């Protein structure tokens, strides 16, 4: 349990997000404390991956559909209007989540908290909120890029 609490999640998640956005999307992203209420309203998409083992948990990235489309266009090197549909957007957001989650999983394994990673899933809609109980650690970080907001949320507890 101490090992979980000792992890500097914030630095790690911030560095990973910056690296993923820079390398895959050629976009800048930075952590922010200023989060407009509207960021969690309207049509949103959540990409998530779970990990199970000595540590069990989930990491999710939540963002507006509009921001998800911006990211999709950047990742695929196309214009916004060229995006053919939700399938492309879901795949890109799933892959971004997989990269951030995969790096967190590696960090956990290197800290002796071996676990395996699930394949990513995505959920979208406009009338939902994420709630989860019983975790040792639950942290949420907000990021800003081109006036869009993304939230990275991590839930963790030691496994059985």
């Amino acid at each position, binding site marked *: 349990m101490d090992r979980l609490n000792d992890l500097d999640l914030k630095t790690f998640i911030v560095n990973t997000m910056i*690296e*993923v956005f820079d*390398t*895959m999307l050629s976009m800048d992203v930075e952590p922010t404390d200023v989060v407009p209420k509207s960021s969690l309203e309207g049509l949103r998409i959540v990409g998530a991956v779970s990990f199970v083992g000595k540590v069990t948990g989930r990491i999710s990235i939540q963002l507006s559909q509009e921001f998800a489309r911006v990211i999709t266009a950047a*990742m*695929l*090197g*196309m214009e916004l*209007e*060229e995006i*053919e549909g939700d*399938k*492309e957007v879901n*795949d*890109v957001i*799933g*892959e971004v989540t*997989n*990269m951030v*989650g*995969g*790096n967190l*999983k*590696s*960090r956990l*394994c*290197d800290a002796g908290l*071996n676990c395996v*990673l*699930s*394949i990513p899933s995505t959920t979208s809609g406009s009338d939902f909120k994420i709630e989860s109980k019983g975790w040792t650690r639950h942290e949420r970080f907000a990021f800003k890029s081109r006036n869009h907001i993304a939230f990275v949320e991590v839930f963790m507890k030691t496994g059985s």
Partner: protein
Amino acid sequence: MSLKILTVDDSKTIRMIVKKAFKTFDCEMIEGENGVEGLAAAASEKPDLIILDITMPVMNGIEMLGKLKEDSTLKDIPVIMLTAESGKDNVLQIVKMGAKDYIVKPFKGEQLIERAEKLVKLEAKKEEKSVEDVSKKYFTLDGDFQILVLPEKITRPIIVEIEGSIKYKIESMAKSGMDKFILDLKKVNEINVLLIKLIILVLQNCRKGKIRIRLSGTPGISAGLKEFQETSEIPIDHTIEDAKAAF
């Protein structure tokens, strides 16, 4: 002879990024969505290189790598693992199982090419051959009319193909004294933003090369194009014969 490169990843996005990275090289790209499809493609196509993701449904990359190494006909194909997991144990396992290299996501296409070049000899695509192939696919000559027949649905790869060859086509028309171009849309059954983009591209190239152009398509296409600001004013002839007569 083209190299065959098999990319196995459940994410279409990653497969697209891999394909894009090899776009300028003389490679035939083959795809699989999971380990089962990857193994089947490896057995039937005998690729020169496999780019293999780890976390996939149905059969993951580690299992597929194990099965490749057990098969005497496939075990020597070099494999580059693509993984979001950079943990020491993970990397050790990959290397121990016989993968030639690994790349941790996020990655850039240039990194992948750099690693691939250490394992196979990549050669630049012969542009002339590619242009010639595209010409045969979409362009036909009918008397002194150059006709470009568009397929049912315009996708990004089709735009890239036509964009790469239209300049040469217009130049060769100018050289041989031809100036009549017909863009035939009768096969098109989906009007999307890519189609509009392609029409504008063709019009611009014709204008630049001082080539006269007519568009031909069904009344449905004609009505559909009027919905877009960029094409709303363009006259559409309903048959090729009407288009020829209109010059």
